[in-house]
Structure formats: C-alpha cells, structure tokens
C-alpha cells in the first residue's frame, strides 16, 4: 500500500475541477468581493474600476439595516420550518414506499413530478391558487370550513402569506428529500434486514434502528443541500407575494435582488451577499460538526 495517491488520480481528481471552477467562477467571485469594498453604483456615472475604496462601510451599513436583518431572520425561519416539514414528510413517504406494491412505479414517477416543473410555473400556479378568486378558498377550504373560507385573504396578512410560501415550497421540494431517503433506504443490504428479521425485530424496529442510522450521512447531505437551496428562495416570494404585505415576506434573496437590480446598489448588494455567505458557512460548518465530529469524542 502506498502512502501517496498515484499521480494520475491526483490530476484527474483535482485538475478538471479546479480548471472549471477557476476559469468560470473565481474571477467573478473575486470581483464581487472587491465590489463589496467599494462605494459604487452604475448610476453614479463612474466606472467600477475608478470607484472609491470605502473599506468596510457597506458591511457596517448592513448591520444597521433593519430590512436586511429582518429578511435574514425571516428566511432563516422559513428554511428551518420548510426543511423540517420536508424532512418528516419525505421520511414518512419513504417509509411507506419501501415495499413493493401495485402501482409503485407510477406512484414513484408521480411523486417526483414537482421537481420537474420550471419554478416560475410552480410560482404562478400557487399565485393563482391562493388568490381570493382561486380554488384554495373557493373549493378546498369551502369544503372544510364552509362559507367563512371567503374571509381568508392569504396574501393580505403576513402570517398567512408566509404560510402560503411554505406550502408552495413543501409541495415542490418534499420529493427531493423523499428521493434521497428512498434511494438510501432501498440500498440497505437485504441480508442485514433478513438477519434482523430472523432475530425477531419488527419492521418498525428495523426501520428506526437499522436503516435510518445507516443512511445518516446521505440524509445529512441532502438536508444541507436542500437548506442551502431553500435559503435562496426567490421565485415563489417574488411571484406570489411580491415580498408583501409591505416587506413581511421579503426573503433575503428577494431583498438582495431588489438592492442589486431595482436600486442598483451593486456594492451594497455584494456586501450583503458576502455577509449571507459567511453566516451560511458558519452555520453549515457548525451543523456538520455538531452532527458528526462531536460523536467521535466518545
């Protein structure tokens, strides 16, 4: 056994990746970092390479920007709620889908269909759905709570608007968690399960004590990736509520979009993005440390 990786493997494992990332992303990324330290705006009439260096002013401004902090907190709450719901729903669904039954193939294809729709179309479907003239109030809630369903204005109050966004996101992305868990769970060695069954374990015990722990790393990465995507939620917020009422459903992505594109304050937007980036990195790192590395101390 050798101590060093063979050269060919090192090249193949590192070179293409670095080439791709560096050729495509590094320069714009560095540019973005640079912009965050400038006080620049295209409408200021000067070119970006001539703009004044302003150090950490943008960052200080961000810390006292209540709209930014609010958007950050709101998005964090959204992510936690949405990922939790999707996790449990995906888990439950994976549990029920594990064994063979009639119509399984079709069910599987149908379950993952939401992932295949363009996000703008999903957003407009739910926009129409939750309007006062839409089916949510007039068909479904009517069945459940009768005429008073007409009094619910989904987008008029911050809470219900927020809930409508959650519903839209859960609808679209639960299949993702489900798919990962389902793939992972199906992969657990049948022999293991048979062995456990021989030893008298019930299917529920098998599920909770054997299969789940085995796919823990896979589930973790799925949750992390989903959380990262959820943090960037934009389409549904933009189309369904427009950030409203007021700014009460303005997610961080929507706010940064407005700063960058409506207010054209690119330097400030870059600073905001960097702050978000740093926060995310810290959170993800801590989360992973918490889930894994502290276990090692045993």
């Amino acid at each position, binding site marked *: 056994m050798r101590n060093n990786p063979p050269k060919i493997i090192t090249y193949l494992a590192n070179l293409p990746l670095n080439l791709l990332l560096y050729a495509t992303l590094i320069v714009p990324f560095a540019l973005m970092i640079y912009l965050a330290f400038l006080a620049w705006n295209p409408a200021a009439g000067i070119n970006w*390479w001539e703009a004044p260096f302003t150090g950490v002013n943008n960052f200080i401004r961000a810390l006292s920007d209540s709209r930014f902090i609010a958007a950050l907190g709101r998005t964090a709450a959204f992510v936690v709620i949405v990922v939790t719901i999707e996790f449990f729903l995906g888990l439950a669904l994976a549990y029920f889908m594990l064994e063979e039954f009639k119509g399984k193939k079709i069910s599987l294809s149908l379950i993952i269909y939401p992932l295949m729709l363009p996000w703008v179309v999903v957003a407009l479907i739910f926009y129409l759905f939750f309007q006062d003239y839409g089916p949510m109030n007039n068909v479904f809630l009517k069945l459940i709570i009768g005429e008073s369903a007409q009094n619910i204005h989904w987008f008029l109050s911050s809470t219900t608007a927020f809930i409508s966004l959650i519903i839209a996101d859960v609808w679209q992305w639960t299949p993702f968690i489900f798919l990962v868990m389902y793939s992972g769970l199906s992969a657990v060695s049948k022999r293991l399960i048979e062995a456990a069954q021989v030893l008298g374990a019930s299917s529920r015990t098998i599920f909770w004590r054997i299969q789940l722990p085995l796919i823990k790393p896979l589930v973790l990465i799925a949750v992390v990736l989903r959380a990262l995507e959820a943090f960037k939620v934009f389409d549904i917020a933009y189309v369904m509520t427009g950030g*409203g009422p007021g700014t009460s459903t303005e997610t961080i992505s929507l706010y940064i979009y407005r700063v960058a594109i409506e207010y054209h304050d690119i330097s400030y937007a870059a600073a905001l993005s960097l702050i978000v980036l740093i926060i995310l990195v810290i959170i993800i790192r801590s989360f992973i440390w918490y889930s894994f590395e502290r276990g*090692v101390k045993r």
Partner: protein
Amino acid sequence: MILYLDSNNDCENLFMPTARYNPMSEKVEGKISRRRFITASIGAGVVGIIVGAAGAWLLKPEVVAEKTVTTTLTREVTKTVTATAPITVTPPPVGLDVVAQRAIDGVKSLIAKGAAKPGDTIRILHVAGSRANLEKAIELWSKYIPEIKIELITLGQEPDVYTKAMSEAVTKAGTFDAVTIFSTWLGDIVEAGLARPIDDFFSKYDPGYTGDIAPIEPLASYTTLYKGRRYALVFDSDVFTLSYRRDLLTDPKLKDQFRSQYGMELKLPDTWEELIKMAEFFTKLNLTAPSGGRVWGAYFYAEPRFAAYITWLNIFIESGGILFDLKTMDPKIDTKEGKYAFDVMLRLKPYMPPEAITASWADLYDKFVKGETVFTAAWPSLSKEAHRPTALVKDVAGSAVLPGVEVDVAGAKKIVRAAPNPVNWVAVISNYAKNPELTYLFFQFATSPDIGKDVILTGVILDLFRRCWFTDPKYRPAFEEGYGSEFVDAYLRSLEISFPDLLIRGGPEYLGKLTVNVNAVMAGTKDPEDALSETAADWDSINKKYGVDAQLEAWRALANLFPSDVKEVWRAKGYM
C-alpha cells in the same frame, strides 16, 4: 457498505475518506480545524480584493466609445454644411408625413455618403409587450429601406430590460444600439453613461416636436429631457385616466337611490371625496357583475411589486404636495398632503377588493374587463382591453379625467386635477451603438405621425401621444376605433394635466421604497406617519448617496416641467 466500514457507527466518513490508501497516518488532516478555516477565509478575502483590483486593471473595456462619439459628431456637422452635390431623394409616396419622410431621406443620404451600408443591422433591446408594435414598425420600414435590417432583442419582464441596460452601461459591450426604457429610468440610464444626448439629431432632422403634430406637452418634455438636454424620443404615453362602468353610473334607479342616500348627484366624481362616497354606495349594493363575480366600488393600485406609489402620488400631487424641497432637496412627503393621500386611500380600502393590495397590476385589468369594478384607474391599455369584442364591459366602459382634490389657492377654493404618467416607454440611443444616427432615424420614423399611428394601433402597450392624432380628422377615427371616442377626449385632457414619474437618478429606488411603504400602510402593517417618515429617511440617504447637489439640479429641472395647475398651487403654498 457503510456498516462494514463504520464499526463505531458514528458516521465520521462524511468528510473523511472511507478508507484511505494510507491508513497509518492518523493525523487530523481530515478535520477542518477552526484556525485553518478562519485563516483561509481571510486569505480568500484578501486574495479576492487583490485579484479584483488586478482584474479591474485588466478587464477594463476599451474606452474608445466616448471618443468616437465626439469625433463623429463634429465631422458630421461640418460635412453637411459643405456638401455641394444634391442628394437625390425619391419623391415621397402619397400620404407619408414630413417627419417620416425626413427620416427616410436622412437614411438614404447616410447610405449615399457611405456612413451606413446596406446590410447594416440595428439592434433594439425591448420588452415582449411591445414586440407587435416594433414588428409593425419594421414591416413599414422595410417598405422604404429594405437594405437596413432591424434585429429585436426581446425580454419578458421590464426589470430585465433595466438590468440588461444597466449591465450594458457597465460592460460597454455594444450588445444593442437602442433600448426602449421606462422614462422612470431616464436619470439612471443617462448618469450611467448609456444614453446618448440627441439634441444634435433633433435639430438636424426635426422629429416634429412643435406645432400641431407635436407630442402633447408637458409629457413630451418631461419624458425626454434630463437636466435640460434631450436624451429620448417619445414612444408611448402612459397617463392614467379614470375608467368606469357607464351603465351603473347612468342607471336612473341607482341615481335616485344615491341621491336619497347621499344628497348629491351620481355623476363622474370631481374629487376623491365624491368618489369615496360613490364607491361606498356601489360596494354596499353588492351587485353581481356580468362575469358572475361581485361588483366592487373601486380598484386603485396598492400592490407591493411596483404600482402602489401611483395612487398615493396622484392624490399627493393633486393636494399640492411636492416631493422634494426645491432649495434643499429635503423630502417633503411627511407633510399634510402626504397624510391626506393615505387618508383617502385608507378610506377607499373597504370598497376595494383585497387584490388591490396583494395581486399583480394585471388583476386590476382583469376585474374591470369582467365588470367587477365601478371606478378604476390605469394605463390607456385598459381602455383598449375594455373595448375588445370579448370584454364583458365592451359597451359600457367609460373614460374620464381622474378626480382631483379641492385645494385652497390664494384664498379661492379650486379643484386641482393632475394625472400620473407612470413608466412611459421612450427610445434611447446607446452611446455604444455602432451607428447612432441610423438608429435615431429608425425611431424618428417609427414615432412619426403616419407610421406612429400604425405602430401604436397594432399592439397594446404603446399609446398615443401626438396632438394631431387627437384632433386631426385624418387620424382621429382610427384611434377612436381602437380606444373609444370618450376615451380619446378624456385622454387628451389628461395628457395636458399629466405629471412625470420621478425620473431623476435613483428614480426606481425612490419609488420602490415608497411603494413598499404604501403597500404596508394599505395592508395595515404600518402606520401612515411611520411609513412617511421612514420613506423620507430612506429618500434622504439616497440623496446623499448620489450627491444632494446633483439630485437637486435634476429635481429642479424636472419640477419645472410639471403641469401649470400644479405649479400654481406650489407657488401659492410657497413651495416654488
């Protein structure tokens, strides 16, 4: 499987390799140590700044563009003066107006001089809604100048056009020769260096901005001038008018009922106060619309994506409010005029459907066309839609000038009416265009009295703006057919009392922050007082960001172009 390799079942292999080919090394190379992380991040930041600054040096696009513009300009002018050989001009086909003819002749002479070549392409960045219009313009253009081609770069949403235009201002790539923009963006586009001043072309080719064929003032001026210089050609007008259901307003039974309930006549409202009463009346009747839905008394914009400011601004200006102090550029919106505007809107709220506050701007159109609103206000395209054969209010949609506010002017009470002109498409020539003169001529052609008429009537989002289209019997019938005759009259009057969007630099930002706060007030999540003071504070910081003096200069120039009624009130109040 993981099980076999993970004997202590702690799943430590997320970051570490499952089994390495060097199992002897038990270093903690697998773990990400905190120190390493922080150093790396700071390092990345520093490297980023250095690379960015270096990139700044290397990635500068050539600054040739500016120089070329000035030199071409001076050369052109001298050439025309010393030209001796007469340029043969094809005799005008019957019916082509002088403005279009001048444009055609201009292009032909450019080709003759070699300044433009057959096969040259003009590229225009525009929004999907105007595609039909532009294609019509291209069709007519190719009848006269088939050798110059036009290529359309179409984008779906307006913010995308803004983004692309501003990106072009940064990259200077020459992606397009002209762009149709909202007049609201004029300040930003000019200050970013994208818009080419076209005073020279105006004086050389005369696009017909004086006399009977001229686009209606004050709109013609305030949508094309910035700090006193000309940067755009009027391509559209977007003045709001009041649309209403004539059948409900003229129904004798309803008139009686209203008279007995409110002690006044049911007619077109002159003031917002009157409109509130009528809206209340109709909403409480709970009538059924032709679509089967319920009839609401009113629907005025209050939505958060961009339109909420329009209603507020309308009432604010009519009350005699001024957005910024003309001497200091202090925002003057948290004044009694601002509060009154909110007062009116909040009193209207119970008589408007909730969609006014939450749904996109298109829902207003939908509701009126289905007959579910009695009073509403929107762009001229609303009248166009309401007159389609498939519209449910086709025979009963009426148009009028928006109601005003009763103001005390020098002791006398006067009803001041002013109509907002939000957005408004104008054509801007890019500073990085390959052939600015040729591009300009296309737009002069496309906005001329004859060609412009066809262009506007073909599509939906561009609307009429030349006086002759309203008054000249040669043109008027075509527009009456498209919009309805009541509309044409009401629109002419509205144009004459129209006021601009805030098109100084940062316009979209000022208005964006105002919209979000207006929507918050209407949704009930914020107090009008707080909303106004917060918006004023936001506006203050925008002022400072761009330089108070620069903004003041632009604001003063713009305020001067407001309609005379409004300026009179400002003078009476000491604002001007």
